[in-house]
Structure formats: structure tokens, C-alpha cells
């Protein structure tokens, strides 16, 4: 602690002398400072995340009580969405599609990469800022515009996109057709995607260059905190997987607006009418291009989450991570493999044995590094000294829940069991068990962990624990029943599963899921209160409240413009906790002895 104190004071005093004072707009709105941009990303994407969650809480009503008017707020939605408070199937489908899109593209990715990556990564590598600060600002604003465009879908006739977040053609081409195609939900979705993809591309270029070029002296690649590694691999995934979807989105736009037939096969008969398309296209082409993005995208959702969890675990176990190099190699391997497993989403599209065998094999191979990472994190607990603070609780909840998510991927990755389980609630349960702990809980862990760095104050522990227990119980109760619903054969994306005998039979489980989802939603209230109240009322803390080793804690709090009063030099690996013979139980990376 004492080692940094003089930096702190010097930093606060010298800061501001060298730079002309900026106006409000340049300082807080159109800022090029990675920390301001990170906070902008965080606030925007947390808002979107909450909005996306509200959408699903609405859907859960229809699922639990099909055809019953939504209580209290049902009347607010108007005749085109909920006549008499009863949700229409098209509105239900819109909610489903937008829930997926908003959570993935507007919530989690911008939070993990845009917010945490932006704020923490340059600090952790000892850089004064991102390599291209103006580009960074542009990424944020393109993302912001993309989000606004996406939301306008709700206000056009016909409603927001309702062909699922996967937007499978030809459904996405033939649905929501109107005279002015530019102002229909699906077209707006495609335009929004183009913005969001562009934003991610700009961001990923920036991240990679920053990590390669701006590391502090002595910070070799194998001394990088695991979180930085995760951001590095993630940026490559974004950089190379997103463009094919951008191309695909352009092709689908052409199909919708210019009447081309990229995804439209010959001889379509839609609503009893022979289609006007010339045909010759392939619906599977969209799926290939989409999943070429969307499988790496899954890893974009969880790799930074694993990074955060690793940081928190190393810090709160007070000992080095088990197998740091093994973790890094697994991460890189995961990144590579994630590009050649995409067709396991398409086993049911009429795939021959050879191709199914190939993609099932790559899928089984990719499960190995995941198991290795999970095992390494578990072994890190051995012989440690665990502090059960709120970030650590979320990080610990990640371990068993992510294990469930990973394990339930096995029956889906093997083609034969997938025949029964494909596109059922089992799939929903599986990937929510991956992204809820892997992304959402990791995000919470990260917020509780780094909040003191951003504001200089800690979040309230009691409210945090209330939030944690509500979320863990809620999440498990939402998603565990889904495995049984899926096992019974109930398809996903059904407006009313009781139509089928096998669905009506497990309706009780679906109702439990719904109540749990609302409970999960309510559990976020302490968090929201905590988040805003602690800005002023939180307990003031020092620059390094968690007694952590990585460089972001070596700056004053909050970090000044330019981050480090003196650019640090790194002498050791990232997690030197409980070193024998050291005076304290942690040795920061920038301390010589």
C-alpha cells in the first residue's frame, strides 16, 4: 500500500496542468479517454441488458399462462401487440427475437468487451490509453446508433423482427413484408446488425493493437493477466468471425429490399401463391454464414467472463492461479477451435454421416480445453485462503453452474442424442447455463470487483449478498426445469406449449421457470439500488482495496487522464500471492523486490 501512496498524491496534483481543460461535451460525452468510454459502454449496455431481461419476463407470462391477459401492464401495449392484454403470437416472436439479439449483441458483448475490456485492459497492461482513442470513441457511438436502430423496430408497423435471433431465411425474407421494406422490423434488424458488427470490428482492431503495442516495459505475453489474454483472443474472434455475418446481412437485405434470391430456393409457394423470386438460392447458405459468426460469438460471450472470474479467483484465494500457462494455451486453442464447430448447430438440416462425424469430433475436441480451464480454476482453490466477498461469491457460483452448462452440451454435440434434443428447451437450458454464469455472473463479479477502481467506493456488501443469493437461486430455478421440459420433447420458441400433449404434461415446470424468472428479476433490485446509491454513499476505499497484484490497482483511484503518473515497469507474473518470504501476502507486478 505505502509503495503507491506518493504516486497517488503526485498524480492528483500534476494531472490537469499539462492539458487544457476540456468542456463538458468533450470530457464526458464525446470523450476519447478509454475510461470514460468504458463507463459509457457500461451504462448503455447495462440498460440494454435490463431491457432485454424485461422482454423475457413478459414472455414468461405467456408461457406460464397462455392466453391470459398480462396483469397490471398488459393494457399498456396497445392493440397491435396485446389486444385486451393478451399477447399476440407475432409479438411473442418479436420479444423472443429481440431478447436474444439485445442480450447478445447489445448487452453482454458490449459489457464484457466494450466496458470491462475498455476500462480495465489498458490499465492492466500499463498503457496510457487505447492505441486509437478516436476510433474507440467511434466504436462506442456506432454501437449506440446500432442499438437505437435496433430498438426502433418496436415502433414500426408489424413490430420488431420476429424470425428469431438467428433470422433463418427464408422466414426472415418472407415475414414482415410491406410496401416500404426499409421500415419493417426485420430490415431494421439487419441494418442494426450492420452497425453493431462495424462497431465490434473497430473495437477489436483497437484491442489487438493496444495489447500488442502498448504493454508496459517488462510485461511479456506470459506475464499478462488472464483477463487481458481473454480479451486478446476474443478480439481475434470478433475480428474474423463478424465480417461473414456482415456479408450475410447485406445479402439478406438484398433479398428483402431488392428482390434477389440468395437464400431463396427455386419453386417457393408462400401462402398459396407462387413466389416472385427467381430462385436458385440456398437457405443453408444463411445458416452457414450465420453460425460461422455465431459459434465464435458464443466464445466471445464467455472467454472474457472466464477472464474476469480468473482475476477474481486469483485475488480472493490469495494464491497464484493453477496452471497459468495451461489456461492460456487452452484459451488460444478454444479460440481456434471455435471456428470449426459451427455446423453442430445444423445437424438437423440434412447432413450426411461424414460431415456430422467431423463436426461432432471437433465439438468433442473443443470440450477438452473447456474442461481443462474449469479444472484449473477448481484446482486453484486447493491450498488457498478464500475470502467470501461478493465478487468471489459470483465467481464461485460460476464454477458449478458453468460445469452444468458445459456438460449438458455433450448430448447436443453428439449427433444421435441431438435428434431428440435439437431445438428443444434442453438447448435453451444448456446455453443459458453457459451464458448466465459465464457472462452475467462474471459481469456482476467484475462490477463488484472493479467498482472501487472506477468510483473510489465499494458497493454495499449486504445488498450485494442479497443480490447474489437471489440471482443464484433464481437462475437455477429458471433453467434447471428447462432440461426436463426439453427432455419431454417440447420445442423452443413455442407461444403455447400446452397445444401438444407432451407440452401440456410438463406445463408445471414451465410455470416454475416463469416464477423463478420474475424472482430473478426482482433480485436485481438490490443491485440497481446498490449501484446508484454507492456512487455517493458507498464506503470510501484506498487505491488497492482488494490487495491485488495487477497493474490497474497501481494507479490512483479514479485513474487520471493518461492513467499512470509514472508508466510502470513490470517485474513479475500477474498472480504473485502469498509468496514465501514476502512481507505481505501479495507482491504487485510493478514492485521490484
Amino acid at each position: 500500500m505505502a509503495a503507491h501512496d506518493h504516486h497517488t498524491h503526485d498524480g492528483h496534483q500534476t494531472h490537469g496542468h499539462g492539458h487544457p481543460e476540456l468542456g463538458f461535451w468533450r470530457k464526458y460525452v464525446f470523450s476519447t479517454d478509454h475510461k470514460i468510454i468504458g463507463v459509457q459502454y457500461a451504462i448503455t449496455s447495462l440498460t440494454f441488458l435490463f431491457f432485454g431481461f424485461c422482454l423475457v419476463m413478459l414472455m414468461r407470462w405467456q408461457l406460464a399462462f397462455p392466453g391470459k391477459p398480462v396483469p397490471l401492464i398488459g393494457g399498456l401495449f396497445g392493440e397491435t401487440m396485446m389486444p385486451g392484454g393478451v399477447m399476440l403470437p407475432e409479438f411473442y416472436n418479436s420479444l423472443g427475437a429481440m431478447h436474444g439479439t439485445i442480450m447478445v449483441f447489445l448487452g453482454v458483448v458490449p459489457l464484457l468487451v466494450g466496458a470491462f475490456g475498455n476500462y480495465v485492459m489498458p490499465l492492466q497492461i500499463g498503457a496510457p490509453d487505447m492505441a486509437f482513442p478516436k476510433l474507440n470513441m467511434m466504436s462506442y457511438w456506432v454501437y449506440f446508433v446500432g442499438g437505437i436502430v435496433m430498438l426502433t423496430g418496436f415502433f414500426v408497423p408489424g413490430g420488431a423482427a420476429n424470425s428469431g435471433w438467428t433470422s433463418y431465411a427464408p422466414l426472415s425474407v418472407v415475414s414482415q413484408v410491406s410496401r416500404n421494406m426499409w421500415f419493417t422490423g426485420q430490415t431494421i434488424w439487419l441494418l442494426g446488425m450492420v452497425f453493431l458488427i462495424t462497431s465490434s470490428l473497430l473495437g477489436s482492431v483497437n484491442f489487438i493493437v493496444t495489447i500488442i503495442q502498448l504493454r508496459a516495459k517488462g510485461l511479456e505475453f506470459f506475464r499478462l493477466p488472464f483477463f487481458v489474454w481473454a480479451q486478446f483472443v476474443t478480439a481475434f474472434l470478433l475480428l474474423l468471425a463478424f465480417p461473414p455475418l456482415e456479408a450475410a446481412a447485406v445479402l439478406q437485405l438484398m433479398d428483402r429490399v431488392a428482390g434477389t434470391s440468395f437464400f431463396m430456393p427455386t419453386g417457393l409457394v408462400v401462402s398459396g401463391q407462387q413466389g416472385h423470386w427467381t430462385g436458385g438460392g440456398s437457405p443453408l447458405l444463411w445458416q452457414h454464414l450465420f453460425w460461422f459468426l455465431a459459434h465464435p460469438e458464443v466464445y466471445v460471450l464467455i472467454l472474457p467472463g472466464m477472464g474476469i472470474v480468473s482475476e477474481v479467483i486469483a485475488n480472493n484465494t490469495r494464491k497464484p492461479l493453477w496452471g497459468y500457462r495451461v489456461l492460456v494455451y487452452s484459451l488460444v486453442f478454444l479460440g481456434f477451435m471455435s471456428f470449426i464447430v459451427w455446423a453442430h448447430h445444423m445437424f438437423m438440416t440434412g447432413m450426411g454421416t461424414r460431415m456430422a462425424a467431423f463436426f461432432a469430433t471437433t465439438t468433442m475436441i473443443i470440450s477438452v480445453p473447456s474442461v481443462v480451464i474449469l479444472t484449473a480454476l477448481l484446482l486453484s482453490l486447493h491450498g488457498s485462503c478464500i475470502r467470501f466477498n461478493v465478487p468471489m461469491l459470483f465467481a464461485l457460483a460460476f464454477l458449478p453452474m458453468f460445469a452444468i452448462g458445459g456438460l449438458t452440451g455433450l448430448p447436443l454435440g453428439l449427433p444421435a442424442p441431438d435428434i431428440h434434443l435439437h431445438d428443444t428447451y434442453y438447448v435453451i437450458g444448456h446455453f443459458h447455463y453457459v451464458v448466465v454464469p459465464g457472462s452475467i455472473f462474471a459481469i456482476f463479479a467484475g462490477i463488484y470487483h472493479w467498482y472501487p477502481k472506477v468510483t473510489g467506493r465499494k458497493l454495499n456488501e449486504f445488498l450485494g449478498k442479497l443480490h447474489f443469493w437471489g440471482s443464484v437461486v433464481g437462475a437455477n430455478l429458471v433453467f434447471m426445469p428447462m432440461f426436463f421440459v426439453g427432455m419431454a420433447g417440447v420445442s423452443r420458441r413455442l407461444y403455447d406449449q400446452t397445444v401438444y400433449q407432451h407440452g401440456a404434461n410438463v406445463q408445471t415446470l414451465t410455470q416454475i421457470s416463469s416464477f423463478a424468472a420474475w424472482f430473478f428479476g426482482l433480485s436485481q433490485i438490490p443491485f440497481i439500488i446498490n449501484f446508484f446509491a454507492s456512487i455517493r454513499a458507498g464506503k470510501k476505499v484506498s487505491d488497492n482495496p482488494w490487495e491485488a497484484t495487477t497493474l490497474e490497482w497501481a494507479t490512483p483511484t479514479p485513474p487520471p487522464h493518461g492513467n499512470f503518473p509514472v508508466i510502470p515497469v513490470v517485474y513479475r507474473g500477474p498472480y504473485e500471492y502469498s509468496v514465501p518470504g514476502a512481507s505481505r501476502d501479495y507482491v504487485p507486478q510493478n514492485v521490484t523486490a
Partner: protein
Amino acid sequence: MRVRSIGLWALAMTPVVFLATSPVAWAQTSTAAPITAKIDGKYGYWLPPDLSQHGSQIDNLITILHWFMAALFVGWAIFLVRCLIRYRARPGHAACYDLIKARPAKAVEVAVVIVEIVLLAGFSIPAWAKVKNDLPTEADTIRVRVVAEQFAWNFHYPGKDGIFGRTGPQHVNPATNAVGIDLSDEHAGDDVQTKEFHVPSDKPVICEISSKDVIHSFSIPVLRVKQDAIPGMRIPVWFRMKPGSEGNYEVACAQLCGNNHYNMKALMVIETPEKFAAWLTKAGEKEIFED
């Protein structure tokens, strides 16, 4: 701060308590038309009943996998809980800098790899190859063309001559000729098209799945059959029933296909050969094609 937050929390929980205890809320309702035919089969909280001969392969694999998953999970969970208790921070306890040797962990990883290889190469791929490629070759195999549309399943039987009449999109008439049979074809006269899926219980069935408009998915949970209906393609699936599986079942759509996707179901009737023959004759007589 603390007291206020507890108060807020309690306030927030009231609607949950209210909803959970409300008997009205728990009453089951449905937006769909009442099911006219009684659906047979016993449904529990695990896999649905299995009527097909290949289904047990899939079911066994699913069961084995879940035992394997449970074993792994329990192992991990025991280790986790032990660590959480034994290594919790407390006065007089400090972390140890040295990392443990992880022979058991490596053994577990190797075991996972081996089990995955066995499941994949030994069970999954052979089962898949059988379901996808080993189409039945018996002369009396029932062939059905399944044509999906928004939001119904159409079934096209070749009739007595066993040959499908020629089809084309220009012949489609939504009311009378949903599968687009060309009536001028010599094989078309005896063809049968229906919205109900009838099959005899003693013969293998090959369904050729296709779609007129968007992607659907032909799913029969009780037969462990699922195949996407891709417009512009014709993809076969086949199944063979276990003896004594006569009854009424449901064909579902498993791929989002539009607003009424949830209600795109067809009645599947598995019946004795005699009943099936009688039904086919009757259905053929009723047919009136207009072009």
C-alpha cells in the same frame, strides 16, 4: 441504509408471494383449439414414450450420457465444497504459494476424453449413420412425401401403384392440391394427399421431407424423429414401429416458422395394416382434385 433496503426488498417480494399463492394463476389454460383426438402414450418427467425401433439407441445414449455427466459433476462439486470449507479465510490460516500436483485431475481429463471418444465413435456416429443412411429396402416400405407449409403438414401417399405423381409449384392449390400434384401425370390418379398422417404399425416408413415456403422441422417426439424441412430440398427420414404401438400421436414443428408455429401440428395415427388399407382407400375416394 440496511433497514431501508430490507424494507424495499420485502416490498418487492410481495407480488411474487401473491402470484405464487393465487389459485387463479396456477390454473392451466390454452390458446389452442381443443385436441379432438385423444393422444395416447404415457408422458412423465423424463423422455417421452418411445415407439420406434431405433429410439432405444438414442435413449440409451442420452441416459448413459446423463450418468456420466452426473458422475463428473458430483466429483467436481465434492471437490469444490471441500475446498470452500477447508480453505475458507479464518484467523491463523494462510494460503500456500505452491500449487498442488494434479495427477487425479489429469486422470479425470484423460477419462473424459476416452469416454467422449467411445460415445462418439462407438455409439453416436453408428446410430446416426443408421438413422440417416440405412434406409429400409423392403418392397412393402411405405413412402410418404411430407410437404410443410405455414402452418400445416401435408402428406402425399403414392397410392396403389406405389409411384408418386409428378409435382410442381404451378399445380399448388392451397385448398385442394396442397402438395402440387400434376394431374396429367399417369401416376397421379391414385395419389392421396391428407393433413393427417396415417401409417401401418407393421411396416417401415420413409418420409421425404420438404417445404413449400420456409424452414420447418418435422418432429415426432415419440418416434425420436426430427428432420428440418428445407425448402428446395427433399430429405428422407425413416422409422419402424415397435409392435403394439397403435394409437394417436402428434407431429410437431420444431423450427420457428412464423406466427402460428406453435400450433403447426398434425395428428399421427399408427394403426393396424387392415385399418390403414381401409383408410387409404377411403381417403383416395374422397379426393377431388382441381387444377
